């Protein structure tokens, strides 16, 4: 029977069998060092029969036919195929110096890099190790073309956003993140546990259907190797953090002079009589910023036995904030387990579990805003009791003293996977991915009084507490059938299904009158049970998805590549008749370098042309079709509040997800013995059915009523066009010396091509009382800035008289020293119809430049990141007569021939504070993200105690940033409508790091 099957094997795969079999034995070694390699996979080509090398690199394979070809595979090494001639076969493997043999995960399957027909970026372990990100997302910044990373804030634990090939949507631009097959997030993972991060940027990601439009980030975490003794690694680092920037504001003397001038200009009495004694006054920024500590410990054990592989790690990260470290910090703990067991030859079981806890404290974003605007003439601890600064600016340090809160989260995520290989070439995988996350928060608002009528005052204390649970379970089953027909026709077929359920449950409560007005008593149970404002609420969400997918990958001789896939998704959160759709893509590639005319080229080692096209979805628009009674209908009857029932936001029964159509044409080229590798891509994406929130509708629909709202409508199309270029140059690569340069640049242009039912959508906010500064409008990039265009400063009355009247802007007196606005529509008057495009929040170009190398025991690396061609709105000034001001006011207009850009100071009504390009700055920057030097100790003397590696290093993150932008941090989020408006964002920290890596 067995022979019959064996015979069938050989017939099927077209090999001629000889009757004679032998037992093959050999040692597998590393080509350069000559050290033995355990855990190398040895398989007879075309069969599933095989073994692995043991601790000594020795393998044994019984009953092999002479003439069979053995395939030796080991991660990070070039695959080797050797024909069996006799009973001993020793093999040495070479390190895969060129990345072409790298295995790339492409979603429900893997491919060799050289066979990939989509646009893919890869970040490996070494980059993560060098950059030491707290959130692994940061490692993508500058290291991967087409990927931009933005910090929402520099605060510890703040969310990091990824944009793949620009901003397309107003709703959600975050890519799907798949960790080892389960849907997760990068911020819950210990970056040290990550083996590699793959980014799918084009239509190849259509295998993820309704969730793939923003690109897909695939994370593979580490696992041990079979037959390998345990390797223990301990990594630690400590860092001192400082703010990367402080803003130049007026000191007390400058401030008093400037105020006096403004008061005098409007004929008011001077606020400061004696300026001589004021000196520098208080520097509130100085008081707010502090040096802060960052610590990380990480320990891992990995290895494997005959039938098992494992990886276990634990880590802890503690980060204090660079502002008010007592009030802002972040702690994350991780425990990770990866375990793979071969139950039988045909059945493999693996389990992945990542348990994590996070804790953080934060404070209101307005602290920095207050720090900037508070008058330097006040003492550090002095409150503005007389309302000198109006009602909206308070002492930031008093504000911090009244800030109390905590946040804790904990979760477990991972998957259980069974892989079954019933017949050769066919693998059936069934896996359950899960993520269970619980978090809770508590914030206490004491009774506060910062001076008469301040808006921050509270007359009663309150505590707000909440608990939330979110659970995600995804059960996926898919089969991969990989087969070569008639020698040259390589085919892989995938068929699968996925079922997902996301549940969310939260309870929120506010209690009033906390005993003793103290955080120590800030618990709901202690608050006033009778108080009318005591509030209890809950939230619930249930999302379900059912999907089917299929993919065919085919190549002829590895030269002509093709793949096609289709996925059907149905989601519970849309109208029943509209909830299902098909997504598809087709990709193709041509390995030109395999053609005869290039085969022997000395210059060109590898050349592949590839193209892809397909449709993908962005899963947003949930439950918009439902008409809920969520409005506010409260009125006062019999002198007491009575809650009524009213409609909430207007439903949109037609609501659906957003759809992307993506085209990519790319080229992969390796030159000069693979020393130079180049990847070039051109891409286009049309994002259709863009959801537009708060879609303006006629007021007669009653959407302005309390708790009401305009519907969210699929009503726009935007188009991203761009290109990527990445080049890697291996200048030196020997055992002792290496030097590598990598550069990548991405250009993206966004253009809104359609906004149904109206010319534009507007949003964002600037200062107080200004019209919305951001727009989505046909022909412009999404969220561009719309305001007045300045044309210098009026130098004298004659210039004022010669210019069209600016009275239509509000202030009816224009004087020399006021800003001159351009009459964009040439109608002879300046009014709000003269607003125009004055910038956009997204960069045209973003690029990274990385150098790394080693010399003997020293290693070093450097990562630069740059964004060019974006604008930022300076919105951290509160234009009140007495608020402190940036020191650019020192260069203000003070008479004819002085400044032609900065207007005069006055307390009179002027049009100078209207949203114009005066407040829009070039946000381009170049940042040295990381520079690092490491030293590897000679461990030969330490080998007795088991030390295999000992390295110390020092590095600096964010050492410098070159920019013309005057705010804290030009890396401010470049999203859609309302993005790029800087209200005093928490700056990124500069980090001086000292670290240690030990391996046993």
């Amino acid at each position, binding site marked *: *029977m067995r022979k019959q099957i064996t015979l*069938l094997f050989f017939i099927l795969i077209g090999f001629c069998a000889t009757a004679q079999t032998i037992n093959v034995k050999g040692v597998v070694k590393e080509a350069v060092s000559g050290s033995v390699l355990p855990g190398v996979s040895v398989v007879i080509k075309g069969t599933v029969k095989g073994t692995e090398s043991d601790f000594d690199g020795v393998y044994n394979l019984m009953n092999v036919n002479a003439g069979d070809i053995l395939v030796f595979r080991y991660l990070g090494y070039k695959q080797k195929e050797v024909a069996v001639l006799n009973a001993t076969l020793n093999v040495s493997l070479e390190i895969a110096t060129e990345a072409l043999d790298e295995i790339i995960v492409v979603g429900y399957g893997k491919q060799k890099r050289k066979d990939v027909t989509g646009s893919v970026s890869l970040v490996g372990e070494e980059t993560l190790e060098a950059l030491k990100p707290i959130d692994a997302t940061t490692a993508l910044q500058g290291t991967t073309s087409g990927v931009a990373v933005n910090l929402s804030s520099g605060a510890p634990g703040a969310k990091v956003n990824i944009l793949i090939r620009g901003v397309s949507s107003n709703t959600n631009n975050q890519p799907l993140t798949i960790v080892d097959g389960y849907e997760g997030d990068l911020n819950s993972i210990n970056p040290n546990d990550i083996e590699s991060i793959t980014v799918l940027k084009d239509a190849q990601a259509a295998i993820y259907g309704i969730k793939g439009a923003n690109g897909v980030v695939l994370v593979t975490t580490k696992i041990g190797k079979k037959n390998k003794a345990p390797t223990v690694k301990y990594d630690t680092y400590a860092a001192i953090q400082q703010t990367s920037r402080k803003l130049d504001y007026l000191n007390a003397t400058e401030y008093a002079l400037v105020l006096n001038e403004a008061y005098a200009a409007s004929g008011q009495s001077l606020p400061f009589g004696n300026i001589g004694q004021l000196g520098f006054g208080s520097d509130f920024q100085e008081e707010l910023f502090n040096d802060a500590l960052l610590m990380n410990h990480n320990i891992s054990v990995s290895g494997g036995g005959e039938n098992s592989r494992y990886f276990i790690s634990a880590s802890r990260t503690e980060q204090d904030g660079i502002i008010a470290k007592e009030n802002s910090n972040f702690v994350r703990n991780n425990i990770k387990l990866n375990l793979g067991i071969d139950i039988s030859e045909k059945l493999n079981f693996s389990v992945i579990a990542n348990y994590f806890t996070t804790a953080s404290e934060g404070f209101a974003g307005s602290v920095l805003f207050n720090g900037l605007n508070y008058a330097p003439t006040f003492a550090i601890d002095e409150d503005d009791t007389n309302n000198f600064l109006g009602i909206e600016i308070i002492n930031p340090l008093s504000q911090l003293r009244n800030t109390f809160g905590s946040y804790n989260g904990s979760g477990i995520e991972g998957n259980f996977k069974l892989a079954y290989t019933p017949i050769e070439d066919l693998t059936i995988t*069934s896996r359950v991915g899960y993520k269970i996350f619980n978090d809770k928060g508590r914030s206490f608002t004491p009774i506060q009084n910062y001076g008469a*009528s301040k*808006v921050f005052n509270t007359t009663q204390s309150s505590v707000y507490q909440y608990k939330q649970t979110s659970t995600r379970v995804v059960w996926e089953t898919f089969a991969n059938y990989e087969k070569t027909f008639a020698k040259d026709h390589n085919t892989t077929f995938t068929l699968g299904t996925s079922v997902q359920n996301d549940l969310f449950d939260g309870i929120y409560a506010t209690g009033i009158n906390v005993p003793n007005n103290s955080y120590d008593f800030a618990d709901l149970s202690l608050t006033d049970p009778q108080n009318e404002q005591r509030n209890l609420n809950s939230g619930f969400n249930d999302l379900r998805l059912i999907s089917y997918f299929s993919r065919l990958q085919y190549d002829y001789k590895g030269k002509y590549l093709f793949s096609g896939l289709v996925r059907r998704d149905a989601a519970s959160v849309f109208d029943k008749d509209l909830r299902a759709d098909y997504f598809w893509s087709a990709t193709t590639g041509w390995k030109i370098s395999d053609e005869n005319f290039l085969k022997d080229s000395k210059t060109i080692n590898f050349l592949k042309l590839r193209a892809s096209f397909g449709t993908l979805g962005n899963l947003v628009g949930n439950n918009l079709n439902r008409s809920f*009674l969520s409005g506010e*209908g409260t009125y006062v009857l*019999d002198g007491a509040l009575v809650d009524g029932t009213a409609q909430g936001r207007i439903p949109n029964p037609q609501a659906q997800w957003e759809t992307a159509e993506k085209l990519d044409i790319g080229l992969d080229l390796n030159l000069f013995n693979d020393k130079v590798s180049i990847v070039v891509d051109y891409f286009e994406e049309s994002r259709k059915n863009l959801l537009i929130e708060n879609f303006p509708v006629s007021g007669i629909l*009653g959407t302005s009523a309390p708790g009401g709202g305009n519907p969210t409508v699929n009503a726009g199309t935007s188009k991203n066009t761009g290109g990527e270029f990445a080049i890697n140059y291996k200048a030196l690569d020997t055992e002792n010396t290496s030097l590598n340069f990598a550069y990548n640049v991405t250009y993206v242009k966004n253009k809104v091509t359609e906004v149904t039912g109206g010319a534009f959508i507007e949003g964002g906010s600037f200062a107080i*009382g200004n019209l919305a500064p951001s727009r989505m409008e046909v022909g412009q990039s999404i969220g561009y800035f719309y305001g007045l265009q300045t044309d210098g400063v009026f130098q004298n009355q004659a210039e004022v008289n010669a210019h069209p009247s600016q009275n239509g802007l509000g202030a009816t007196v224009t004087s020399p020293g006021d800003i001159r606005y351009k009459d964009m529509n040439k109608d002879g008057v300046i009014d709000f119809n003269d607003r125009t495009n004055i910038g956009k929040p997204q960069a045209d170009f973003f690029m990274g430049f990385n150098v790394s190398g080693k010399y003997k025991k020293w290693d070093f690396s450097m990562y630069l990141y740059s964004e060019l061609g974006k604008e930022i709105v300076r919105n951290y000034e509160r234009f009140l007569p007495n608020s402190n001001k940036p020191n650019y006011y020192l260069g203000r207009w003070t008479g004819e021939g002085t400044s032609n850009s900065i207007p005069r100071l006055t307390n009179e009504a002027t049009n100078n504070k209207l949203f114009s390009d005066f407040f829009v700055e070039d946000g381009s920057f170049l940042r040295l993200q990381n520079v690092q030097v490491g030293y590897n100790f000679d461990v030969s003397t330490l080998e007795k105690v088991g030390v295999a590696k000992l390295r110390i290093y020092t590095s600096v993150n964010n050492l410098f940033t070159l920019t013309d932008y005057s705010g804290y941090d030009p890396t401010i989020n470049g999203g859609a409508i309302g993005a790029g408006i800087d209200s005093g964002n928490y700056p990124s920290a500069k980090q001086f790091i000292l670290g240690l890596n030990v391996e046993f």
Partner: protein
Amino acid sequence: MKNRTKNIATSIIIIASLFIVNGCSDDYLDNTKVYAEDSESFFNSEADYYSALVAAYDPLQSTYINVLMGEIASNNTLCGGETATNVPGYQQVDDMIHSPVNSELQSLWSLMFGGVNRAAYIIEFQDKTDFIGKEIIIGEARFLRAYYNFELVKWFGAIPIKAEGRFGVGDEKTIPRSPKAEVYAFIEADLKYAVSNLSYTTPQVGRATKGSAEALLGKVYLYQDKFTEAAAVLEDVITKGPYMLETDYNKIFEAAGENGVGAVFEVQYTDVEGASFDCLQCSEGNVAVGFQGVRFTSGEHEPYTYGFSFNVPTQEMVDQFEAGDNRKEVAILDIDAFVEVRKQELLADSDPNNDDDFPRYTLGYEHTGFFNKKYIPRVRSANAAGDLNLTNPNNYRAIRFADVLLMASEANNRKSTPNDTKARLYLNRVRARAFGNTNNEITTGGTALTDAIYQERRVELVGEGHQFFDLVRTGRGTQIPGFSTNKNELFPIPIEEIQFSQGKWTQNKGYTN
């Protein structure tokens, strides 16, 4: 061979069964939990109707913008505020240079239609569930719809109306603006239903009564110059209704005077719930009050507290008060006089060198020295929730009995067969209270009496948002600085609305889009 076939067969069965189990079917998607009520399956009990009615009252609170901007539009006050550009929409209305681009007018339009739709929601489902006393709820819903529509027709003239219920998406492109006469007929029908189904007493303080509906109907007639009808229905309010003139004019505008004997209809406010600028219409307090306060920088000065210095009365307005008119002190706060009095009091009480407690304030834009005392912020209770500027609890005295008397007086004077005796009787009742004696009675008749009634309305109702509309409906708009006849009688339809209607609605006369 068999084994292999078996293996393949097993594989197929495994795959197939996994797919069946795994994939189930789209039915799986139907069983999601929602925990939310749907608007179209509501109105299943009396409680549901009541609850929807409460929500229909709620938008009355957003009429603060009508009152504030209406007063600013008149010749009584200037816009004020922090700077010229503080609220450009108000400023433009004050200067009569407003255009269809005006976010305050757009708010007013949208908020009032919000009210119309909340009331119409109940009317649309009025036949779904029966219970005893339903006609009261429907009567109040129709009163409210009339109230909101009357505000809209006052400001914008012709408006779209939909008798059967709420406006839906797309109606703006199909339903025309009904001419004013049709709108008024629609309002009259709603009010007549309310008059015949409501009684003079109400189950809860704050809800509309028969008297509220009659008084509003009288006003609606007056705005159409239907003086005979107005006189008749207002006569009912005066003779059959339970209302009296509050003897102390000052008491009316203090907390103690809320929902008093002269309150025909009041918009209810409270300060126990917080609010923010993000959603002014969500406030349960009277937003207009905080807007009108003095910009004190020295805290509270019993009985007043700080605000934003909008809507400041002009000297010309203050001069309208005759000597001996007690209303002047109630209606107008002369800030310099107030500060001086307080200084003297403090100096008498304490250390003369300590000037910390002296009232201080910053000058707002267009400072006149006067504030709208009826509706400036009072010192608040300990329960008051912030932002205190937005949660002042002062009820808006929407229809006062004095207003009813003056309307009745005008209707009797101007109807086709005038009854000046009755007109003078009602007018002089108001004046007797104002002067505290009967020595200042008006004795003229005819148009002289008409003018006296107009003048009386101005001083009696100053600061309450009526003057602009009184001037316009009586053809005296040109008294307003900057007023253009044949244009400023109505406000422009917000430009956004013209665009939404895609040509169905045209702009009001004199305004260009």
